[in-house]
């Protein structure tokens, strides 16, 4: 019955060897899985998922790691088990036929049993041993061993036999998973943790605010470190998955690559490059400011680049979003058809926060998008209190960063708060924060957008007006007039006014130029006239001068003639000629 314990004997001094369960997330929080060759206790209340956890441990072991397993059930028959897990895609009958799994149903009916004298549970050992040996099982599950306490009256014998069983299991070197009910004050109803001291896992299904959340905790794991928090986990159509994202730290890489916001002029505001890849962007604003539309632009741009995108919508259905975005010229449907875009829509109240986180985590792990939009995060406040919500979002952001997923979160700011005070108080976690707001002025509401912060990016500090047009969001030129930033009709009327003034100014200038031209012409004309006049006058004067000159000449000639006639002294004449006319005249007279 007792095989040489190959695993234990061959194990060097490099710590505890672990057996991966293949359950997503679980192996991460335990740094490798369950302790190999040792029994592990899984306890939890009714419906906590013990049986499923155990079954998945076996099925994954058989299918992923080639380790056959034995499932010894004290509660459900083989047929029931097979039916129950068929919905998870586990074909137990096939696994049994392939000799990868043995289902051993142990049925005990208290009313059928009479106890007389001493006994032991050797038959149980034999059955288990036979099942293990028949397929060379490495993993076994005992679900739920405590049924023995209900079925057999002598507790002392059971306890002694359990002690023997666990030692026997260790000697066999099988990795065993023992499920048990949670007790009132103890971990288990019958104190089985006293016997299984290596690893104890607690499964829990708590209901808060009418919403149930499954959680898991490693209570104890001897000989190894492990995550000690409560981790939310999911049971869905693909089985168990644990969300290990409480264990993340601030060790994520910071890529320098940029990623477009999908709105060209917003990119311009962000130093012309957009956001950093892997960063978290918060878009906050009051109702109807276009937060989701900014998100849709972001997704549209990512898909257009051929990247994958995930849209987590907590307010609208997929169809509604597609319809609404089509109205502003964003066609998301074609990307869904191409398989680049996936929607995950759910009302926040459908699940608890942790389950939401787990669902998001799972969806991201499966789809591996490069861009994620969560619209809006504020709705989580209806499920949890602000502290829980913040903690959940912190873990979500950490996870997204570790995956280098660029994420855009929208946040609805209610009227009660300051705009800069995001309701979920996660702004400190965000790398960039766009604030969109309705600016009410002059009897109208206009949409304004500004970048409150953008870590590591030189960004514009302007408040920009944007319009929702047929071609999506259009950032309008910032109009800074004398009265500050103008928006909407005030902006356009101011623009019109300025245009009118401009026209006026032009007219005045034209008029003045015309006037100048006229003046020039006038002066030129006057100049011509004056010139004419001058010439006339000059001619007249010249004529006068000539006339004046002529008699004098004639008189001089006459004088000369007279002198000649008088035969006057030449010198006298000459003298008179050279002297003044007066003298001459006087002399002549």
């Amino acid at each position, binding site marked *: 019955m007792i095989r040489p314990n190959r695993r234990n004997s061959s194990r060097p001094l490099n710590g505890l060897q672990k057996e991966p369960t293949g359950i997503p997330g679980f192996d991460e929080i335990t740094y490798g899985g369950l302790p190999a060759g040792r029994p592990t206790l899984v306890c939890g209340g009714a419906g906590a998922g013990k049986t499923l956890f155990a079954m998945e441990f076996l099925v994954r072991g058989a299918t992923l790691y080639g380790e056959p397993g034995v499932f010894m059930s004290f509660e459900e028959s083989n047929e029931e088990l097979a039916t129950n897990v068929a919905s998870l895609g586990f074909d137990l009958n096939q696994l049994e036929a392939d000799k990868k799994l043995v289902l*051993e149903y*142990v*049925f*005990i009916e208290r009313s*059928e*049993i*009479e*106890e*007389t*004298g*001493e*006994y*032991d*549970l*050797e*038959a*149980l050992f*034999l*059955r288990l*041993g*036979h099942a293990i040996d028949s397929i060379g099982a490495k993993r076994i599950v005992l679900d739920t061993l405590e049924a*023995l306490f209900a*079925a*057999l009256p002598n507790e002392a014998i059971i306890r002694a036999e359990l002690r023997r069983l666990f030692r026997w299991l260790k000697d066999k070197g099988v990795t065993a998973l023992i499920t048990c009910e949670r007790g009132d004050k103890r971990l288990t109803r019958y104190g089985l943790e006293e016997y299984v001291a290596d690893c104890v896992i607690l499964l829990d299904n708590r209901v808060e605010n009418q919403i149930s959340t499954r959680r898991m905790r490693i209570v104890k794991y001897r000989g190894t470190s492990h995550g000690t928090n409560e981790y939310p986990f999911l049971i869905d159509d693909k089985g168990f998955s644990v969300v290990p994202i409480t264990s993340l730290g601030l060790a994520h890489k910071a890529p320098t690559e940029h990623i477009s916001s999908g709105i060209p002029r917003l990119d311009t505001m962000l130093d012309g490059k957009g956001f950093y890849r892997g960063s978290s962007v918060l878009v906050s604003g009051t109702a109807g400011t276009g937060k989701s539309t900014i998100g849709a632009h972001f997704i549209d741009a990512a898909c257009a680049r051929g990247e994958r995108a995930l849209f987590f919508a907590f307010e609208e259905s997929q169809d509604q979003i597609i319809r609404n975005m089509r109205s502003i010229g964003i066609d998301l449907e074609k990307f869904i058809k191409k398989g680049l875009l996936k929607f995950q829509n759910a009302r926040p109240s459908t699940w608890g926060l942790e389950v939401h986180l787990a669902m998001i985590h799972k969806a991201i792990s499966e789809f591996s998008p490069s861009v994620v939009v969560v619209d809006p995060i504020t709705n989580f406040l209806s499920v949890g209190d602000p502290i829980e919500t913040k903690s959940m979002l912190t873990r979500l952001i950490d996870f997204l960063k570790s995956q280098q997923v660029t994420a855009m979160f929208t946040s609805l700011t209610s009227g009660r708060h300051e705009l800069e005070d995001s309701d979920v108080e996660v702004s400190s976690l965000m790398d960039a924060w766009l604030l969109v707001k309705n600016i009410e002025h002059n009897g109208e509401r206009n949409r304004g957008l500004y970048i409150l912060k953008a870590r590591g990016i030189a960004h514009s500090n302007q408040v920009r007006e944007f319009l929702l047009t047929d071609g999506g969001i259009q950032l309008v030129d910032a109009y800074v007039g004398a009265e500050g930033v103008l928006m909407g009709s005030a902006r356009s009327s101011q623009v019109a006014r300025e245009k009118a003034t401009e026209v006026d100014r032009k007219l005045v200038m034209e008029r003045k130029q015309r006037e100048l031209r006229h003046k020039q012409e006038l002066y030129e004309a006057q100049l011509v006239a004056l010139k004419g006049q001058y010439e006339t006058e000059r001619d007249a004067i010249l004529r006068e001068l000539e006339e004046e000159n002529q008699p004098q000449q004639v008189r001089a000639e006459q004088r000369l003639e007279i002198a000649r006639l008088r035969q006057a002294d030449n010198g006298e004449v000459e003298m008179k000629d050279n002297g003044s006319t007066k003298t001459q005249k006087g002399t002549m007279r």
Partner: protein
Amino acid sequence: MKTTPSKKLRRPTNGLASQSESDGSRWNLRLYVAGQTPRSLTAFKNLKQICEEYLKGQYYIEVIDLMENPTLARGDQILAIPTLVRKLPQPIRKIIGDLSNTERVLVGLDIQPRSN
């Protein structure tokens, strides 16, 4: 081993075999043991005594050693060793232990009504 220690102990048989035991097969009893442990021997001894005393001539005991045939434990859902199974008359009853308490064995086998 006690699979065939006396004329009253037979290997597991089919219906024909038990019929051929004449009316002595009205009580069809099966004792499950695991190896020749002192407890098994005690149980068999006690069972034989009780049968001889209360069911003389109408019983048929079958001893099954699970060490040799572990798969047989599945059929009658045996956990404890030793276990006595009353196959006939119906309904099936199981008595676990070394059968040292005769009164409880008789109650368990429905030979004697419960006294308390």
